[in-house]
Structure formats: C-alpha cells, structure tokens
C-alpha cells in the first residue's frame, strides 16, 4: 500500500481500521513535503501538525472523532490561521502572524484535522501562473520547467505530487480550476456564498470563493461537506441549507443534458486541449448524456469585465495594507506620505500594484461610469446568458484553459496572461459553481475538463464528475518521478 496514493475516502477507512495512525500519516506527508522540490509550501507547520495528529489519534481512540479527524491537509496561505504566518504570498505580510482564525480554519480545527502547512500562491491571489509569489514560483510536478497555474498553484502542485491528501484553494477568476487543470487534479469552486469568506484574505470580494482541491470528485464532496455552510460573520454567506454532497455521487447520468458553449471552442483553443475535451464529452455521451450546443454570447466580454471589477474591488480591499497596524512598514519613514508610499511600494509586487492602479483609475472621478458601472452592466448580461442556457441544459462543459501548462517565465506580458483566463472568468462573474477534472493529456501534460452548473448545483456537478472518474483513470495518473 502506498499511503500517499490513497484517496481521502480510503484514508478515512485506514484510520478507522487502524491500518495507520494520524501521526504516522502526518509524518509520512511531512517527509514528502520536506523532500519536495516544487516550492509548493510557504510554511510547513511540522510541530503544529504533529501535535494536531496526536490529538486526533486520542480522539479517534476515545471514539470522539468526526469523519475527517486526523486527515492531513494543506491550507492555501490566504486563509488566516491563528498563531501561524499568513502571508497571501506577499512581502507585505511576510511578518504577519495572524491573531485570529478564518472560519474555515476554525471549522477544520473543530474536526481535529491536521494542517501540514500553508501553500504557495500568487500574491494576494492575483495571477494565473504562481510566478507572482514573493516566495518564488511553484513548479509543475509533471514538468519542472512548467508553471502549475495560479493562483492556487502551490495547492494544486501539492495535491498532484501527493504530498498532501488535499488542499484548500480560492477561486476569483479561475484560481482553483486552472491550476487543477494544469496539474491534473480535481477542483471545485462552489456557488458564491456557499463557503464563508471570513478570514480569507480578500482579493475581489464579490468574486472570491473557496473550494477543495483533491485527487477525486468523491474526495471533493467529502471535503466540501466540511467547508460549506452559513456563517454569521460573512454578510455574503448564504443561509441556504447544505446537502450531504456525497449522497448523489452514484446517480446515473442517463438523460443528463450537457451544453457545449460554441464560444468556448473557437479560435485560440489549443488543438490538443480541444481533442481531450471532446473525447471526454464522448465518454459522457456513452454514459447516456445528451449533448447540445449552447451560446454564451457575452462570455467573450468576460476579460474586460473581470479586469475592471476585480481590480476595482482589490484597489479598495488592499488599502488596509498601509504599514500602520500590521504587516510591512518601510525603514524610518520621514513623514506619513513616505510611510504609505514606501511601505506599499516595497511591500507589494508588480502585478498587485498594476491591478491596484487599474482599479483606482477605473473608480476615479470621470471614469466610473465608463469603466466600473459599464462592467457591472456587462456582468449582468454575462449572468443572463447562463440563466438562459440553463433553461435547456443541466451542465455546461468546456475547456478550463486554452492550453496546457506553459514554460516558467515564458509569458511576460500581463495582457497575454489575462487572455488565458477566458474560460473561467464568466463563472465567477455570474457566481456559479465550476469544476475542473482530469480528462487526459496533451503532449504529456494534463488537461482539465470544466464543468459549470447552475447556482447551488454542486451535488450535480460532483455526481457528474464522479461518474466520469468511475469510467476513467486520468485522476489516478501521477507524475512519473514521484
């Protein structure tokens, strides 16, 4: 038995059957993390992990455990963890030991889960390659010269290389789905409002949503059960009841109506990626699903819309990093302006500054209507397109990313980087759930299939993904050298 290839479902069984203890499991993963060369972690919390594992074992022995007690995980370094450095991949927060727990961290602690460490990410979740981290880029485990995707690149690489059973991610414009696709793992971004945002460092508040990054859809369902739910501390958290996401995994897909947006298969999509996606669709057809074309005409405006809305929100969200109460402060500020200007200019990286400036400009007097307000209206149109499409189909499918993982350092121009987000952004703008599952390989690099559902249809998405994984082995493939 190779412990690290076990799914969470299998690890739960193993712990229950006393095949191994949580401490053994934790030691095994910590060893793998410390041997890993991917730079997937910003902090490895060895001592904390072992003490949590110890406690978990005691709970298990006493019969006082929950389903996920003793299961190790890696936490994206965007979630506040009390007493543990929480950097958001930024020099600005390199010294920030969070004085409080995010709701999600708190929930995991209540279940006595074991945090292995905090994963690397693009600074403040801004990026699609993980090259915007103050802690250096993460490497793609399938090819160390390639990017893992971003912004949850550390989480994706860690799960793909089996140095953690699962990891948390956040997705503002594709930051769970795109790295999941590029690293060949399963990732789901639930409906906006499903998982509390309290303690998750905000990039763009109306778009940010957390989600699990796992080996399998079944694992994603198990972890989502632990993550989802109403939180009184988050005004945008939904009061809607949370189902048991594992309940409908085995439902048949016979008669499922799948829509393929014609706009997702136009020029710009890599041939190899398209081929893998179409093969996956055929697999669904074989399971009894009905395939039809749909149109999302405004989804092509998602790039300008997103790159106005998100920077506007982030320019304001990141104003709190001013060197006054916590985080980076420049040396010997000579006056207040100097304190602000140098702390922020030295503390933030290039991409973050770029987006802050775009946002400050788009909100400024005289430009608000042309940029921010206009983008809000287009956002409505994008959302209405989906509403229309979901009147005739159950699930929308397509590519996650126009290409497979690209070479580290190869995309230097911000605009080219933004353009690669084309298939993921509209899902966030509309607040819909979206998923990426391993669907095959193009030139030895993983390709993800994107599943998009209507609001609150996570159960159906997970069911659709799980059925595919029962028929295929792509999610079981691991990078050769590991």
């Amino acid at each position, binding site marked *: 038995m190779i412990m690290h290839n076990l799914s969470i479902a299998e690890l739960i069984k193993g712990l229950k059957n006393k095949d191994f203890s949580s401490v053994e499991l934790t030691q095994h993963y910590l060893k793998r993390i410390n041997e890993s060369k991917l730079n997937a972690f910003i902090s490895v919390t060895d001592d904390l992990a072992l003490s949590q594992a110890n406690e978990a074992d005691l709970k298990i022995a006493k019969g006082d455990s929950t389903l996920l007690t003793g299961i190790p995980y890696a936490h994206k370094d965007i979630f506040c963890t009390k007493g543990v450095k929480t950097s958001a991949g930024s020099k600005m927060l390199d010294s920030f030991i969070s004085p409080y727990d995010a709701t999600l961290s708190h929930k995991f602690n209540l279940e006595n889960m074991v945090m292995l460490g905090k994963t690397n990410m693009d600074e403040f979740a801004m990026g699609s390659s993980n090259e915007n981290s103050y802690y250096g880029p993460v490497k793609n485990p399938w090819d160390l010269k390639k990017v893992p995707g971003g912004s949850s690149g550390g989480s994706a690489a860690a799960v793909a290389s089996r140095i953690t059973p699962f990891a948390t991610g956040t997705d503002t414009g594709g930051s769970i789905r795109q790295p999941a696709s590029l690293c060949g793992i399963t990732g789901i971004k639930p409906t906006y409002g499903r998982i509390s945002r309290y303690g998750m460092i905000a990039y763009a508040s109306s778009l940010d949503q957390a989600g699990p990054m796992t080996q399998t859809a079944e694992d994603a369902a198990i972890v989502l059960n632990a993550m989802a739910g109403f939180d009184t501390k988050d005004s945008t958290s939904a009061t809607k009841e949370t189902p048991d996401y594992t309940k409908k995994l085995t439902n048949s897909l016979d008669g499922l109506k799948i829509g393929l947006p014609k706009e997702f298969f136009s020029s710009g999509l890599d041939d190899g990626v398209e081929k893998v996606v179409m093969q996956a669709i055929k697999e669904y057809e074989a399971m009894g699903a009905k395939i039809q074309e749909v149109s999302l005409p405004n989804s092509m405006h998602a790039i300008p819309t997103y790159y106005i809305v998100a920077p506007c929100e982030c320019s304001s969200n990141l104003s709190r990093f001013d060197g006054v109460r916590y985080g980076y402060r420049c040396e010997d500020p000579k006056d207040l302006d100097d304190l602000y200007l140098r702390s922020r200019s030295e503390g933030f990286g290039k991409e973050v500054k770029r987006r802050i400036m775009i946002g400050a400009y788009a909100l400024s007097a005289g430009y608000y209507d042309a940029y921010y307000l206009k983008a*809000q209206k287009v956002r409505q149109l994008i959302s209405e397109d989906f509403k229309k499409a979901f009147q005739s189909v159950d699930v929308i499918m397509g590519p996650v990313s126009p290409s497979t993982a690209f070479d580290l350092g190869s995309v230097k121009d911000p605009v080219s980087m933004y353009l690669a987000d084309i298939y993921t952004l509209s899902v966030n703008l509309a607040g819909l759930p979206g998923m990426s599952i391993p669907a095959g390989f193009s030139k030895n690099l993983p390709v993800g299939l994107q599943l998009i559902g209507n609001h609150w249809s996570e159960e159906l998405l997970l069911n659709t993904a799980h059925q595919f994984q029962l028929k295929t082995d792509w999610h079981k493939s691991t990078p050769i050298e590991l």
Partner: protein
Amino acid sequence: MSLDNKQVKEIAYLARLSIEDTELEQSTSELNNILSLMADLSEIDTGDAEPMAHPLHMSQRLREDEVTEENLAEEFQAIAPKTGKSHFLVPTVIE
C-alpha cells in the same frame, strides 16, 4: 482612453504607490496595454441591464446589537510595526 505619464503618477499617488521616474514610461505603456483590453466595453450595448454588484440576489442580514468581542489589544499590538503605550504610532501628522 489612454493615460499619459502625468496621469499615471497621479493614479499611483491616489493609491499611495510610488513609481520611480525610471519605471514610469514602462508602467504607463503596460497600463495602456491593459486598458486597451477594456476598450470594447464601451461598444457593448447593455440596454437597460441593471448594474450587477453581487452575484446573489440576497439582502443584508442584520446582527443583534450585542457586545461579543473581548479586549485583545495586547495580542493585536504585539504584531504592530510601531506602538506606544497603547497606541499605534505613525510619523507626526500635521493638520
């Protein structure tokens, strides 16, 4: 709409970011490239579409008026860059 160097400096200051003169030219051209992406927004006919600020149609939940927070001043100030007896300190502000 395209930005010149002077505007870029003004926007940077609005966001309390400083740009060295040596990087100004490049910043301006990068920002203009990004803004050129947004150019086609103005051409979209949005008709009478309502501006969408939130993905969900929910209304604000209200909290009971209760004091639930304890005093954690010491913990909070322990991670502050500069504090006095019980204050956060910044360089003297002239009003």
